[in-house]
């Protein structure tokens, strides 16, 4: 399987990374060489093997469903590139 320029454009869009049209052929080639390297995995017999989800046989910890923190909007907004009136500000989303 080889990656076409269209597929490269699509994956860049899904990843929300702007890629210039003239950079697409090189990107497609790069992705293709990495995916070819991964194709080795097809040699392995994985019949009956469950996909691994965690390395330790440990039940994920539970905690009480209670508010444990909060009330610090100003601190949370302190790193925002654009914050106004207690909110993150972004370009207009809804026309």
């Amino acid at each position, binding site marked *: 399987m080889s990656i076409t320029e269209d597929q490269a454009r699509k*994956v*860049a*869009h*899904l*990843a*929300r*990374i*702007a*890629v210039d049209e003239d950079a697409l052929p090189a*990107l497609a080639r*790069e*992705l293709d*060489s*990495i*995916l070819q*390297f*991964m*194709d*080795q*995995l*097809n*040699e*392995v017999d*994985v019949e009956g*093997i*469950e*996909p*691994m*989800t*965690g*390395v*330790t046989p*440990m039940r*994920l*910890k539970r*905690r009480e469903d209670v508010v444990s923190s909060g009330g*610090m909007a100003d*601190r*949370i907004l*302190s*790193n*925002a*590139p*654009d914050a106004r009136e207690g909110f*993150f500000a*972004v*370009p*207009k*989303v809804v026309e």
Partner: protein
Amino acid sequence: MTDPNRLTIADARDALARGDLTAVELTEACLTAIEGAGTLNAFVHHTPDMARQMASAADARLKAGDAAPMTGIPVGIKDVFCVKGVPSQAGSRILQGFVPEYESTVTRNLWTAGAVMLGKLNQDEFAMGSTNESSCYGPAVNPWRGAGGVQLTPGGSSGGSAAAVAADLCLGATGTDTGGSIRQPAAFTGTVGLKPTYGRVSRWGVIAYASSLDQAGPMTRTVRDAAIMLGAMASADPQDSTCADLPVPDFEAALTGDIRGKRIGIPREYRMEGMPDAIDALWREGADMLRDAGAEIVDISLPHTKYALPAYYVIAPAEASSNLARYDGVRYGHRASLGAGEGITRMYEKTRAEGFGAEVQRRVMIGTYVLSAGFYDAYYNRARRVRALIKRDFDRAFAEGIDSILAPATPSAAFPLGSVDKGDPVQMYLNDVFTVTLNLAGLPGISVPVGQDAQGLPLGLQLFGRPFEEGALLNQAAVLERAAGFVAKPDRWW
């Protein structure tokens, strides 16, 4: 005391306890060493005021008889750890200007123990890389130089940490290891790097790369120092649901020097075609040293080793594409400026194109691809099933009575900066061939300097241990360290 910055953590601790040295003197020596080492580009954010304040507090604590093992010990912190009030950007332009409002659990534990913060250390962007060249600050430089004075990579991603420890700029440093990012730079700089068992150290406040693989650990000049520093970094943590609820043992007390009767496996699959003779010879010598100390050397097989690298380069980018989705120019860091009529999607796309470097973009896109509809089973699920088989290889070896496994740390010594073809990512990924298996299986591993190549550059061996048995692993590593007697230091040229 002259040049106290050259002390080991253990010796500095003892000198501080005896009153032969103060934490302020020790910290000043490190700050002076850092000031004179700008060429190495190891420290990328400097915190001298914080260091001096913390050193004074440590001296007060020492005087009051309230000292912990790391009290007054100056350390460097990899940029990937959030330190409250100190720029923390994981080597990325996209986190330019980000100053955390909170403290990572690891650094909080270190400050609680009385360690002194010297500054933030260089790394590959988001810990993705093996050469430090993907850093937004430019690469850290290895204090060891090649023939004719050529500048070498300190390895990556924790290259700044390794360079700083090797050049005596700090007594110890934090690193993180997702596919070898502690052990490979340690091997390239003649230092010790420990990747603990997944879940031994909290990931809270550590900027994420691949959450099922990331683990923080100490980088030090000796195995004993690694034991001391791990003890201060590790803890159970309600803030990280994957952090194990286990007591933290006294790792230093495990260093008995006695490994008689231990069964150490030599995995035949790690004998790669084209492996340099120096690495092969080093591996044999390491096995002989452990045998001479009373261990039993056993040939073992880890049959799925060959598939670890492709499995890793599916799983890690998949997790990264998900973790790095948060860098959208809304909540922190860089936001691209927009032209008239450009909307929010364009803002995301431009912000991420400007903020992420080439390797990060590549991995985010590969991860996006392998998780996308139609490819999820073929790539991601298949890689996770292969991962289960890789872990089963180790489980079987341990079930057959193997205590630990000895392998080379890297396929070569440190190589010149700029020598890896950036257009051939697969070639670069091959650097991680001996290290990624451990992360996939979640096991602890340590890189110990054991010898030098024909050029005089350091070479390391790795020991892999049983889960949550870092004490036994450190003990074996200490025996190897002593038998190898590696004392070489880089000539000071910077």
